[in-house]
């Protein structure tokens, strides 16, 4: 039975890679179709060892992009269902217990804040003046609230520190070592 499945799987993989090689467009259409089917039937792709993996073709089906609340709301729903699955009991977390990290003031920072997530704005190029100018321009377009100037983070390392995660990381490493 499992050999039969292996053969079927390898034939499928080969066929898919063959199709992909010669017609990328066709490959994408098949993927779209399959994922669309799996969403329709609420049969999300999952595997037994890793986390449940869910793909969402949100814009093609819902026509929504950050900073729209719908995208953050979807994330919130999926986080609730992932936590419910992990704990075995229905779990609802407050959006303030979710952090969003991104580099776009309007799409990431304002979008996340508006929905109620914690928001962290990256400025990787370390040019605060340029970033502030960008923020002012975007805020002008959308009348976003910039009275509370967002803090700019040069890298994830600073965000991890502000989230208070670093110290617990070492504690985890130590306890893992002592096991």
């Amino acid at each position: 039975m499992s050999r039969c499945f292996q053969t079927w799987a390898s034939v499928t993989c080969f066929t898919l890679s063959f199709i992909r090689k010669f017609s990328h467009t066709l490959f994408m259409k098949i993927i779209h179709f399959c994922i669309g089917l799996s969403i329709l039937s609420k049969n999300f792709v999952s595997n037994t060892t890793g986390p449940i993996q869910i793909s969402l073709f949100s814009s093609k089906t819902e026509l929504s992009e950050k900073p729209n609340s719908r995208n953050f709301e979807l994330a919130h729903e999926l986080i609730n269902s992932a936590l419910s699955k992990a704990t075995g009991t229905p779990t609802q977390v407050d959006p303030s217990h979710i952090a969003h990290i991104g580099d776009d003031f309007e799409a990431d920072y304002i979008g996340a804040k508006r929905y109620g997530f914690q928001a962290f704005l990256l400025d990787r190029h370390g040019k605060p003046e340029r970033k502030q100018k960008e923020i002012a321009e975007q805020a002008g377009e959308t009348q976003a609230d910039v009275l509370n100037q967002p803090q700019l983070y040069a890298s994830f390392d600073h965000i991890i520190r502000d989230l208070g995660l670093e110290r617990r990381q070492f504690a985890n490493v130590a306890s893992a070592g002592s096991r």
Partner: protein
Amino acid sequence: MHARKALRAVTLDITGTLLDFGKPVGRTYLEILEKHVQLGANERLALHNGIHRSFAEAYKELRQKHPYYGGKTLSTPDWWHRCIRNTFARCGVHEVPQPAVEEIYAIYEQPSAYTIYPDALRALDVFKQHGLVLGVLTNSDERYDVALLPNMGIRHMFHFVIHS
């Protein structure tokens, strides 16, 4: 501070946050075109000088005209093929062979076209160690989900990918 202690999940943007393009998009476009087409000196000069701006304009225009990478009217590859052809057309190059267009489209599914930020990878590990639920919120098209993140070997770290 109290809310931060109770952190349960982290969502991330991708472009500019987790990774960036390895080199300017215009340069990649030009390099691939030159593999397929013998360019004249004038054409090459026009492309060299104008392609970065042309791409930015063509992209912006198409995002306004056909939002969500085509939404329900255009497929993602059709949207990008149009964007690629419009970019070259703005520099006066109207004859672009289809294989060149397809090669440009496909290269952005390969990890080699990007630089991944090491601090972001370290952070993913820290988030995982703390048992946080991880998700992606991107305004890019679905290929990050079905191609690039799997090709980079990091798709499994995320519970979900919400894309444009």
